[in-house]
């Protein structure tokens, strides 16, 4: 047979591509549930890192045990729903992406028993999406810990936002600002606010700028919620352990 004729070439390539596509589609469908479970566990472990909760072997059990409440809020800071703790329901990246609108309808907030409130962020990095979880102390202003992730930032440069421990550590103790600029990730010396930012990573300018922009946007989404619940805290003059539970209750009353 003449394997170099046009007809043969066209038929051959068509058949080959169809077979390959079928194999890939089958593999993707078959492996999807396991992959999804992994992604969920990974998301939860990032949330736990931001909440400074040490994860055990069974991440889901740790989460169930240490979480106080997982709620959904709107942009004005009112509670609009709840995430099931039993099912370890969390917002994954695709769910977070849907919230990036002028007026997000349901933003997740994870409140832990140790008093740390974790909020997510999600945005565009240099090569692909970047995301992160930010844990706030009880004053809902000071950052306790963060955990960032990315899809495809340059290893050794932009990827350092997730795998360079000193970068994540530099967030601890920084505060969310008020006004135009809520948080900055810039070169040292380029900062426009005093306390509301961290140094960018050298060699990763675009990723860091994107991270700063993302943080600003998401802090903006949560600004009202954080301000509202921190206020309740100061009014009742409790900044002890009871504070957190009262905050949760106050959120509940707003809903009613």
């Amino acid at each position: 047979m003449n394997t170099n004729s046009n007809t043969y070439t066209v038929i051959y390539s068509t058949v080959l591509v169809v077979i390959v596509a079928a194999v890939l589609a089958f593999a993707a469908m078959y492996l999807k549930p396991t992959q999804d479970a992994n992604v969920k566990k990974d998301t939860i472990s990032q949330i736990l890192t931001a909440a400074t909760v040490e994860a055990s072997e069974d991440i889901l059990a740790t989460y169930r045990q240490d979480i106080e409440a997982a709620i959904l809020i709107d942009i004005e800071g009112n509670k609009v729903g709840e995430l099931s703790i039993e099912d370890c329901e969390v917002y994954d990246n695709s769910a977070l992406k849907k919230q990036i609108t002028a007026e997000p309808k349901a933003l997740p907030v994870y409140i832990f028993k140790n008093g740390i409130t974790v909020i997510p962020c999600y945005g565009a990095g240099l090569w692909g999406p970047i995301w992160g979880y930010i844990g706030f102390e009880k004053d809902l202003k000071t950052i306790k810990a963060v955990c960032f992730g990315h899809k495809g930032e340059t290893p050794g440069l932009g990827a350092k936002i997730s795998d360079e421990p000193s970068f994540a550590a530099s967030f601890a103790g920084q505060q969310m600002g008020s006004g135009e600029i809520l948080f900055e990730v810039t070169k040292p010396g380029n900062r426009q606010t005093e306390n509301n930012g961290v140094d960018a990573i050298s060699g990763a300018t675009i990723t860091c700028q994107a991270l700063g922009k993302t943080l600003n946007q998401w802090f903006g989404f949560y600004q009202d919620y954080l301000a509202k619940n921190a206020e309740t805290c100061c009014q009742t003059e409790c900044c002890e352990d009871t504070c957190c539970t009262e905050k949760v209750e106050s959120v509940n009353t707003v809903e009613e």
Partner: protein
Amino acid sequence: MGNIKETFLNPIFKGNPISVLVLGICSSLAVTVQLKGAIVMGLSVMIVTGLSSFVCSLLRNTIPNRIRIIVQLVVVALMVILVDQVLKAYAYSVSKTLSVYIGLIITNCIVMGRIEAYALGNKPFASLMDGLGNGLGYAMILVIVAFFRELLGSGTLFGFQVIPQAVYEFGYMNNGLMILPPMALILLGCIIWVQRSIQKDLQEK
């Protein structure tokens, strides 16, 4: 049968794809910070080179010559995506560390090189062995480089601390340069140096 054995063993030392042919350098610099990543990467490349050589060899008499390279790429891409999907399902943390490099196996010159040079002219089983052997040769260099980089750069092996605390107290420090890609290149250079001093016939005049 002796030939098959030779086909499999040759790329491990005498015809090693990295240290003799100097192919596939990019990924060997990037994934050798830790042993675990290097081993998974090595295994993945082994599977991809082995299976795609096997499949291409099966198809070798039917492939239209004009779209030869495209057909090879489709087969390699299929294997790479399958490996990537399986890792995502069953070894998620490793697949996260290796991130884009699994997908980039497709651009690894070893895979295409072996298909073009060997699989298209030889029987399927021999091609499978040739692919596996080349993958193993690649994996071996990766593991050697990763061993030194993890040991000297982080003081650990497979994530376990092996350099005792007492040594640090005497003023020993981990070598930060080992964690950065340039050091992998220097180590690779050392490996090539050692191999060429053993195998005199590789030395250029």
